[in-house]
């Protein structure tokens, strides 16, 4: 099966921004424009994360999401500050196909995952994990790498699967935005720890980084941000490369 190539938009409304190590934001454009651009390049999915909703404790901005969902005939995952079943519901109605949750589930009430999955089906419930590497384990962070949770990433990955999450997006606080390669060891461990699809994010800088990740960690998908935002590579170039070299997960 081919690894999904996913464009990730980190949004600080109204703009997509590119945090480096989750800090130092740079504006890169409007989410609707970028979503359209990546759709035309052949993205398998688009992910939209309001990176400040949780931190500022405000509701995600629905207009911005509706506008981005427009003309996007591929799956659209949305997250940022999600806390209640009503939030899930509103996001689906605004055009999301999957809802992404992190902070509230990690810090306050993991049971929201179970509840949401019973109502919306597990395929629509995605858990975002921000991992930070310590000497011999990875810890879950929230709020864009600002807040520690004390939770072990591998334990948490298994827990969210058990609770009913349909998919995990794995980000690395250490490699995010640097474009110097993925944390392959982390990716491998999380992919092996669970039986649900895992999307790996944070660190792609070149075609060989992507090839190495697919061959060694066998993820279901790869989420790309900086690499696309700075036009280092386009999704069509990546897909062509993977196709020509017959790189897929078997």
């Amino acid at each position, binding site marked *: *099966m081919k690894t999904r190539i996913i464009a990730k938009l980190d949004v600080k409304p109204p703009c997509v921004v590119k945090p480096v190590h989750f800090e130092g934001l740079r504006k890169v454009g409007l989410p609707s424009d970028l979503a359209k651009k990546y759709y035309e390049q052949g993205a398998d999915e688009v992910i939209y994360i309001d990176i400040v909703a949780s931190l500022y404790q405000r509701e995600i901005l629905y207009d911005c999401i509706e506008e981005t969902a427009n003309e996007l*005939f*591929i*799956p*659209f995952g949305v997250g940022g500050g999600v806390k209640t079943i009503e939030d899930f*519901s509103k996001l689906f109605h605004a055009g999301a196909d999957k809802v992404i949750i992190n902070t509230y589930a990690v810090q306050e009430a993991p049971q929201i995952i179970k509840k949401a999955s*019973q109502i919306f089906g*597990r395929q629509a419930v995605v858990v975002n994990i921000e991992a930070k590497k310590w000497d011999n384990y990875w810890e879950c962070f929230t709020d864009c790498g600002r807040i520690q949770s004390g939770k072990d990433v591998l334990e948490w990955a298994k827990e969210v699967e058990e609770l009913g999450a349909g*998919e995990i997006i794995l980000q690395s606080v250490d490699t995010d935005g640097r474009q110097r390669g993925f944390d392959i060891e982390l990716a491998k461990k999380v992919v092996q720890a669970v039986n649900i699809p895992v999307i790996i994010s944070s660190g792609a800088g070149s075609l060989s980084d992507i090839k190495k990740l697919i061959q060694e960690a066998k993820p279901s998908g790869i989420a790309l941000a900086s690499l696309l935002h700075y036009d280092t590579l386009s999704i069509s170039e990546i897909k062509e490369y993977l196709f020509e070299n017959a790189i897929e997960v078997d």
Partner: protein
Amino acid sequence: MNNIIGVINYGVSGNIYSIKKALEKAGGLVVIINTPDDFSKVDKIIIPGVGSFNDAMLELENSQLLMSLKIEIKKKSTLGICLGMQILSTLGFEYGTTKGLGVISAEVKEMVVDAKVPHMGFNKVEVLRNSALFQGIENEEFYFMHSYEVVNYTNIISLTDYFGHKFVSSIQKDNLYGVQFHPEKSRDAGINLLKNFLAL
């Protein structure tokens, strides 16, 4: 033209917005079905597909749509998408055992496969018999997003292979159609499938 499509609204679940957009892109007019009276305004029906089997049936019952939907789908061309296809079956086993609409003799069970579940992503659809729904799009990939599958032997239009496990990816019985994948999320191939449905 018989192109007014009613999309069933099931309350909290459902991805109505995406389906509506895709249908409009395909050239259809959309009416959202909220009450039994709305059925009189439409020529065809789409049952959308985000949610769990028992929640969907419960919502249909609560919204008073269940009885009229059962009658309407006997008269009008109907397309069930993902969960919308699944609930055409007799029984579902997602979070307990739930009775479906019972118009296709099938059961809905969790996928058993030596691979990651849910099955998510673009995958090939192997069309086994001629169907107007797949006219001109027989060799395309469509987007799947599910962990349950319809087990049926008599109404199959297509199968899909997921790591060696073949499952039913579309069905047809008379005027009833069901697709396990999401045409509204499958780029041009999906829009073309909706065009085919509009042209029925």
